[in-house]
């Protein structure tokens, strides 16, 4: 869903703002760049410490394509999860409206939506399955006045068209290999996985995945403990 909406909204000339985190944020930024749009990432730390590290390539691509990185912190300051609510506040501040794709009860997306409400910005949500862990969060947002939408045109019709930007050449993210590493990272975030499990979940050529895992191992992101890979703890 993040990909679909990011793609359609970008094509309509919107600038996509997100938090550069792994997952939905990454998809939103990436898709926007791939459509030739401009995107803004609001950081939870200084410019010298892009967090998460895996998204350094993405941060660079965002700037290179006329987007922005915004930070409220000194360049040398480390990213800190304590900063993230404040980071989310800036996300809604620079935006015309907030679209919530997934909203766990205590998720960052909900925090952003809360600030948006305070700042009199529009909040949009999309339907989530009733039995998903997001259903409750979505319901709470609706009770606070969010608008449920089913397609991107419903968002476009409610925005100020003065802020639209023209599309530039789509970016083929040269580092699609990094987006694969990103996917592996997401998988390992849950728990350690055997190579076979990673291969099954990635649905890519085994050799290619093995090569990626070796790169990540050399870079110190993951470690291989007897054919089981896990994220390496940062010392």
């Amino acid at each position, binding site marked *: 869903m993040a990909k679909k909406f990011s793609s359609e909204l970008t094509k309509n000339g919107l600038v996509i703002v997100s938090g550069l985190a792994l997952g939905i944020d990454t998809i939103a930024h990436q898709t926007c760049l791939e459509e030739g749009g401009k995107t803004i990432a609001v950081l939870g730390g200084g410019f010298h410490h892009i967090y998460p590290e895996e998204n350094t390539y993405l941060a660079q691509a965002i700037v290179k394509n006329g987007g922005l990185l915004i930070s409220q912190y000194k360049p040398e300051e480390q990213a800190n999860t304590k900063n993230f609510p404040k980071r989310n506040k800036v996300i809604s501040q620079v935006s015309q409206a907030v679209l919530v794709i997934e909203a766990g009860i205590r998720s960052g997306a909900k925090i952003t939506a809360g600030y948006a409400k305070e700042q009199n910005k529009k909040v949009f949500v999309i339907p989530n399955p009733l039995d998903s862990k997001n259903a409750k969060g979505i319901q709470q947002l609706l009770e606070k006045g969010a608008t449920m939408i089913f397609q991107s045109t419903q968002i476009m019709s409610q925005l100020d068209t003065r802020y639209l930007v023209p599309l530039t050449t789509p970016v083929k993210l040269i580092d699609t290999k990094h987006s694969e590493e990103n996917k592996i990272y997401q998988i390992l975030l849950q728990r350690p996985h055997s190579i076979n499990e990673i291969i099954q979940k990635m649905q890519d050529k085994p050799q290619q995945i093995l*090569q990626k895992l070796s790169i990540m191992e050399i870079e110190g992101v993951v470690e*291989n403990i007897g054919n089981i890979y896990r994220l390496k703890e940062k010392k």
Partner: protein
Amino acid sequence: MQIYSICGKLQYEPSLSLQRPFRSPHHSITATAMLGGGRNPLPGEISLAHQGVLFLDELPELKLAVLEGLREPLEERKITINRNLISVSYPCNFILVASMNPCPCGYYGTKQQCKCTQEQIRRYSRKISGPIIDRIDITVPIEYIGYDKLISSQKSETSEKIQKRVEKVRRIQKERYKDLKFQTNAELETKYIEQYCTLARKSQKILENAYQKLQLTTRAYMKILKVARTIADMDESQYIQEQHILEAISYRRKEE
């Protein structure tokens, strides 16, 4: 053929001498039976597996003396047995294939819940000492296959096709080493490695990086080069490319 006639086994297993041997002794085997020995030193399983495959199931269950005894033969491809004043040497150029569980309960890293403690897992894998691990070229995980998967006709390469690929690569290697006294990358002696395992510039960089960051031993470094040479041969590539070296790195098993 010769090994079998020494043992007097030829008469019982005549057909075996015509094809490459496949030996799979039980993990309770003694050092003498595995490595060779006795009053009139006879060849052990490793020599019976000469030019063939030695398969060891449940590797960590082997007696320590047996496991450690494999170091010399794996390195030298022959074993020397000293008994009183006699010293006998038997060839044992075999391919070692071994299996083990990821942990004592067998579920570590799978969907099922592993019940072992970190300490148990460490102790289990530590039974295979570093020097042995370093002598194993390739490790791959094999998972329990559920019934639903067994009956689902997943498309995998047929054995015939794989055999064709292996034969092709063997031919390439035989041709490359035609003036030398060995035929495969696995047997490549250290002094020839630089000459035959030529790296593309980028792969050189990756390997240097890996050597430092992953704290590889010299032996592991050489092993990765040889495995990468074989992967490059599968691609019919003269030089070892980036992707070959990266794949080879993933097959090594880290010593804990």
